[in-house]
C-alpha cells in the first residue's frame, strides 16, 4: 500500500488550496497606502544612439511625480554576471556594464531608457508615451545574426567590444589535440548542424515589483517576483544601488512560475527602490504581457555544429562541437555560465566516450538578453548529442536502442570521471532504458505503425537518453570554474513551545510544491504530523539565507540543509531528554516522535521536550541553552546526476506536415522520491515545455531586430490538445551517494529529455514514408515538415 504520510507519500499540495481558490497573494495583489505607479519607456528600435530623452512635456502632465532616465543612474554600479568565464587564450570575458536604464545607446527592442512615476497607472502610461514621442533616437543598423555579429567589427552592440564576442571558450582545451586525432583516425564521422531555438519563458505571472522606503529608519523593502530573493538583495544592495544589505528586505511572495526567468535581478527592481526613496512613497510596477515578451530573459538560442566519431558498430570514439550562443544585448546574471559549465560539461552524456571537446563562442546581439531557462544548457547538450547519435544510427543502419545500450556507462564504473570534468556518482542507464522500452511496448511498434498507415498517417518512434548535473552546486568547485558566489543553501528549524515547527528555507517555491514536500520530510524526521510543520520562504527578513530555486537544487541542497538542521534539533532534544529521564545522553534514542531510554519504557514525546526547552523549569541550564531552534548551511560535495530514457511516438500527416504526439514515455532515475505525485507533475510540466520547444515555440526577430513573435497570437505555447497523456515512471532509483536524502532533482528533466525524443520521432516517421530527411530544426512546425517533404 502506498505510504500516506511523510517521505514517499503523495501528500496533496497544501499550497494549491490557496492557488486554486484565488487566495494566493502575488506581488500585484498587494495594495499599499500612498502607492504610485511606474511605467517604463522602452525602445522601439533594436539599436540606436540616444540623442535626447524628451521628458519636458511629460513632466508637466497630470499626476506625474517623477521621471528617471539613464542619466540618473549613470554613476551607480552595474548589474554583474554571476560567473567570470575565460576565453581559450586565457583572457577574461568581456563584461559590459548592464545599466538600470539605458544610457547613451539602446540595445534591443524593449530596452528601457526612462521611467515615469505617477499617481495612477494610466497617467504614468500616458506620460511614458509622451516621452517616447518626444525622444530622439538615431537608429543604427541592428545586429541580429550571430555569424554576422562576429564577422563585422564595424557594427557593435557595445562600442568597446569589437567583434561582439563575450568569450571564446574551450572545454577542455588541453584535450583538443587528442579529440582532433580521434576524429582523424575514426572509421566513421557524422556531422550535424542544428539550431536550439530561442524561447520566451512565459511564466503565467508576469514580472512585478514594489519598492518601499521608510524614512524613519532608512530601511528599504522590495517585494518582487523572484526565484532568488537573497541573490536579488545582494545584487541590488551591493552592486547596483549601494544600499547596505541590512537596510534592504527582499520579499518574493507567491510567485506564478519562473522557469529561470525570475532568478535574475532586473533593472526594474532597482528603479522602484530608487523611486520609492525619492518620493518616500511605495512605487509599483507590473509588466504587461508585451513587456514580458520584450524584456524577460529568453532561453536557449544556440547554433551548433556537432560531430560524432565512431566505429562501424556505433561505438562512440569522440564528440566535438562548435556552438555560437546568443546572450542578447546585455549579460543577464547567469548568461555566461549557461552555455559553458551547464552545457559543455554535459557533452559526454551517459556514455563511455573517451574524447570530447566543446567550443562555445558567446555573442552579443541587439536582442533581449538570453539566460538560463528550465534545464539551462543541459537541454542544449542533450539535444545536440541525441540528435547526432540518431543521425549516425541512420547513416550506419544501426538500431538506436542498441547503440545507446552499448555505449552506456555500466553500474560498475561509478564513480566515473567524464572527459568533460564531472564525476558521476551513481546511475543505472540500462535500467531506465529497459523500463522505457517496456512502457512504450517497443515490440508492438510495427503494429501501431501499420494501424497509423491504415489511417493515412506516418508513425515514428524517437528515443532520447539524458543526464543532467543539478543540485547546484559544490562551492569550492564552482569557485575554481569562475562562480562569484557560493552555491550552498540554508534552513532554520524553529520548534515552537507547543511542539509545532516553522521551517525557514532558502529555497523559493514558485509552483514546485516545496511547502508540501519540505513539510513531509520534516514531519517524518521528527515524527510529528505534516500539519504541524509550516514552511516559510521568500522573505530575507525571515529566512537565514538562501540561493533560491533553480537548477533542480531545492531538495538536493536546501532540503539537505533542512535535514541537517533537524538532526541538530534531535541532538539537542536528546540532551534535554537525557536530563529529564535521568539517563546518559548516549542511551537516548529518537524514533516516531519519542525520545526513549534504550531498553526501557521510559520516554518523552517530542512535544514534551519542546515544551521543556521553552519552559525550562527542569532543564540543564548550566550546560544547555534554552529554546529549540537550529540553523544549518549545506554545501553539496558534488552535483547530482539524475538521468533517464524518453520514448516519443508521433503521427505525421504527409499532406499537411502536421505532427501529433500520440504517446510519451518517461523512465527517470531521480534517486529517492519524496512525493511521487509532485515528481510526476514536474515531469509532466517539463515534457510539456519540451514538446512546446520541439513543435511550436519560435522566437523570431526580423533583420531590423524587431520581435515578430511578441504576443500569443504569434508565439505558439503548447496547449492541452498539443500534448498526450504522459506515461511517467521513476521506479529505477539509484540514490544519490553524497546527500543524506539520496535525492537527485526532477524539476528540469522533462524539458531536457523531451525535445530530441520528439524530433527523432518525427524524422523516424518521415523516413518510414521514404522521405530521406537528415534534420529539421525546431520548432518542427507543419510548414517546416511539409517543406522538407516537398523540397
Amino acid at each position: 500500500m502506498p505510504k500516506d504520510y511523510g517521505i514517499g507519500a503523495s501528500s496533496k499540495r497544501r499550497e494549491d488550496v490557496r492557488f486554486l481558490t484565488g487566495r494566493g497573494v502575488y506581488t500585484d495583489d498587494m495594495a499599499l497606502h500612498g502607492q504610485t505607479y511606474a511605467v517604463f519607456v522602452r525602445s522601439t528600435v533594436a539599436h540606436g544612439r540616444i540623442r535626447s530623452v524628451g521628458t519636458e512635456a511629460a513632466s508637466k502632465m497630470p499626476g506625474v511625480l517623477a521621471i528617471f532616465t539613464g542619466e540618473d543612474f549613470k554613476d551607480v554600479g552595474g548589474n554583474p554576471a554571476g560567473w567570470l568565464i575565460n576565453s581559450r587564450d586565457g583572457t577574461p570575458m568581456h563584461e559590459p556594464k548592464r545599466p538600470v536604464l539605458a544610457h547613451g545607446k539602446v540595445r534591443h527592442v524593449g530596452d528601457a531608457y526612462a521611467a515615469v512615476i505617477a499617481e495612477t497607472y494610466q497617467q504614468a502610461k500616458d506620460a511614458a508615451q509622451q516621452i517616447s514621442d518626444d525622444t530622439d533616437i538615431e537608429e543604427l543598423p541592428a545586429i541580429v545574426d550571430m555569424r554576422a555579429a562576429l564577422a563585422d567589427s564595424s557594427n557593435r552592440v557595445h562600442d568597446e567590444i569589437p567583434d561582439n564576442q563575450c568569450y571564446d571558450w574551450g572545454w577542455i582545451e588541453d584535450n583538443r589535440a587528442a579529440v582532433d586525432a580521434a576524429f582523424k583516425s575514426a572509421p566513421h564521422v557524422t556531422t550535424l548542424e542544428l539550431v536550439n531555438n530561442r524561447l520566451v519563458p512565459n511564466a503565467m505571472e508576469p514580472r512585478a515589483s514594489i519598492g518601499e522606503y521608510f524614512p524613519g529608519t532608512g530601511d528599504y523593502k522590495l517585494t518582487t517576483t523572484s526565484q532568488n530573493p537573497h541573490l536579488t538583495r545582494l545584487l541590488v544592495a551591493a552592486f547596483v544601488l549601494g544600499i547596505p544589505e541590512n537596510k534592504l528586505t527582499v520579499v518574493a511572495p507567491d510567485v506564478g512560475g519562473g522557469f529561470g526567468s525570475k532568478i535574475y535581478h532586473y533593472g526594474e527592481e532597482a528603479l522602484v527602490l530608487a523611486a520609492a526613496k525619492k518620493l518616500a512613497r511605495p512605487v509599483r510596477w507590473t509588466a504587461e504581457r508585451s513587456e514580458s515578451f520584450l524584456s524577460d530573459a529568453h532561453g536557449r538560442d544556440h547554433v551548433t555544429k556537432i560531430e560524432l566519431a565512431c566505429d562501424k558498430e556505433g561505438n562512440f570514439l569522440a564528440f566535438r562541437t562548435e556552438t555560437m550562443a546568443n546572450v542578447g544585448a546585455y549579460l543577464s546574471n547567469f548568461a555566461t555560465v549557461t552555455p559553458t559549465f551547464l552545457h559543455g560539461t554535459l557533452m559526454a552524456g551517459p556514455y563511455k566516450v573517451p574524447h570530447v571537446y566543446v567550443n562555445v563562442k558567446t555573442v552579443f546581439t541587439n536582442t533581449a538578453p538570453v539566460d538560463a531557462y528550465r534545464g539551462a544548457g543541459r537541454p542544449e547538450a542533450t539535444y545536440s548529442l541525441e540528435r547526432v547519435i540518431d543521425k549516425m544510427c541512420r547513416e550506419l543502419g544501426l538500431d538506436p536502442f542498441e547503440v545507446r545500450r552499448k555505449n552506456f556507462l555500466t553500474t560498475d564504473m561509478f564513480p566515473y570521471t567524464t572527459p568533460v570534468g564531472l564525476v558521476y556518482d551513481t546511475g543505472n542507464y540500462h535500467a531506465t532504458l529497459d523500463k522505457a522500452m517496456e512502457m512504450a511496448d517497443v515490440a508492438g511498434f510495427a503494429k501501431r505503425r501499420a494501424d497509423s498507415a491504415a489511417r493515412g498517417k506516418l508513425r515514428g518512434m524517437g528515443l532520447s537518453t539524458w543526464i543532467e548535473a543539478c543540485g547546484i552546486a559544490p562551492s569550492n568547485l564552482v569557485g575554481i570554474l569562475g562562480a562569484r558566489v557560493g552555491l550552498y543553501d540554508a534552513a532554520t528549524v524553529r520548534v515552537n513551545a507547543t511542539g509545532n515547527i516553522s521551517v525557514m528555507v532558502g529555497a523559493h517555491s514558485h509552483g514546485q510544491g516545496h511547502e508540501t514536500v519540505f513539510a513531509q520530510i520534516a514531519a517524518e524526521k521528527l515524527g510529528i504530523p505534516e500539519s504541524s510543520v509550516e514552511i516559510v520562504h521568500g522573505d530575507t527578513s525571515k529566512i537565514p539565507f538562501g540561493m533560491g530555486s533553480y537548477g533542480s537544487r531545492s531538495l538536493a541542497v536546501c532540503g539537505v540543509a533542512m535535514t541537517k538542521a533537524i538532526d541538530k534539533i534531535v541532538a539537542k532534544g536528546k540532551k534535554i531528554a537525557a536530563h529529564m529521564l535521568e539517563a546518559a545522553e548516549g542511551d537516548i534514542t529518537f524514533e516516531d516522535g519519542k525520545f526513549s531510554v534504550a531498553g526501557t519504557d521510559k520516554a518523552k514525546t517530542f512535544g514534551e521536550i519542546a515544551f521543556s526547552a521553552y519552559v525550562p523549569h527542569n532543564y540543564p541550564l548550566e550546560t544547555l541553552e534554552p529554546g529549540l531552534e537550529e540553523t544549518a548551511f549545506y554545501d553539496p560535495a558534488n552535483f547530482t546526476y539524475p538521468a533517464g530514457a524518453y520514448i516519443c511516438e508521433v503521427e505525421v500527416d504527409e499532406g499537411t506536415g502536421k505532427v501529433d504526439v500520440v504517446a510519451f514515455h518517461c523512465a527517470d532515475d531521480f534517486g529517492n522520491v519524496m512525493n511521487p505525485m509532485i515528481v510526476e507533475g514536474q515531469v509532466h510540466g517539463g515534457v510539456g515545455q519540451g514538446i512546446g520547444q520541439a513543435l511550436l515555440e519560435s522566437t523570431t526577430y526580423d533583420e531590423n531586430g524587431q520581435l515578430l513573435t511578441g504576443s500569443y497570437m504569434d508565439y505558439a505555447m503548447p496547449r492541452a490538445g498539443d500534448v498526450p497523456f504522459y506515461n511517467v515512471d521513476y521506479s529505477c532509483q539509484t540514490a544519490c551517494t553524497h546527500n543524506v536524502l539520496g535525492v537527485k532533482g526532477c524539476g528540469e528533466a522533462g524539458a531536457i529529455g523531451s525535445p530530441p525524443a520528439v524530433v527523432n520521432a518525427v524524422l523516424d516517421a518521415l523516413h518510414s514514408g521514404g522521405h530521406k530527411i537528415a534534420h529539421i530544426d525546431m520548432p518542427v512546425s507543419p510548414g517546416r515538415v511539409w517543406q522538407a517533404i516537398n523540397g
Partner: protein
Amino acid sequence: MQLSDVKTIKASPETVWAAILNPEVLKLCVPGCEAMSGSVEDGFEATVKQKIGPVSATFTGVVKLSGIEPGRAVTITGEGKGGAAGFAKGGAKVRLAPVPGGTELAYEVEAAVGGKIAQLGSRLIDGFAKKMADEFFTRFQDALEGPDAADEEAAASPDEAPKKGWFKRLLGA
C-alpha cells in the same frame, strides 16, 4: 518586406508624373490619408490613419522625394510614427516609361515596421502592405484614366471614393 509590380496607366507619362508630385492626388490616393501638405522640394507631411490587425493608429510623418528624373523616375521615402503602435518606414522606387496607349509605371517598395505593430501584427504586414499598394494604385489609376463604359453606372451613384478621371479633367487632359 518587399513588393514590386508593374501597372499600365492610360495616361501620358507627363500626366502621371504631375500626379505623382501633387500632394492633393497623393492625399486622395493614399488609403486612410487625413492630411498631406508640402512640396516636392521640401517634402510632404502626412497624417495617415490605419488599422493593422489589432493595432489601429494615426501615423504622422515626413515623406521625401529624391532621385528625381523628371517624367521618368523618383524615389519616395518616408517614416511615420504611430505613437503606442510603433512606427513604419520605407521607400518606393517608381519608374515611368511610355507605352502605346499610356504609361507603364513600375514600382519597388521596401518597408519595415517596428514596435507594437511588429510584435502583434507582423504576420499581417505583408498582406496589409500589398493591399495598401493595390488600393493606392487602383485609386491613382482611376484618378488618371477616367470612367470607362462599365463604370458609368457606378459613377452615377454617390460614393465616397473620388470620381474616376477627376485629375485628368482637372488638368484638362
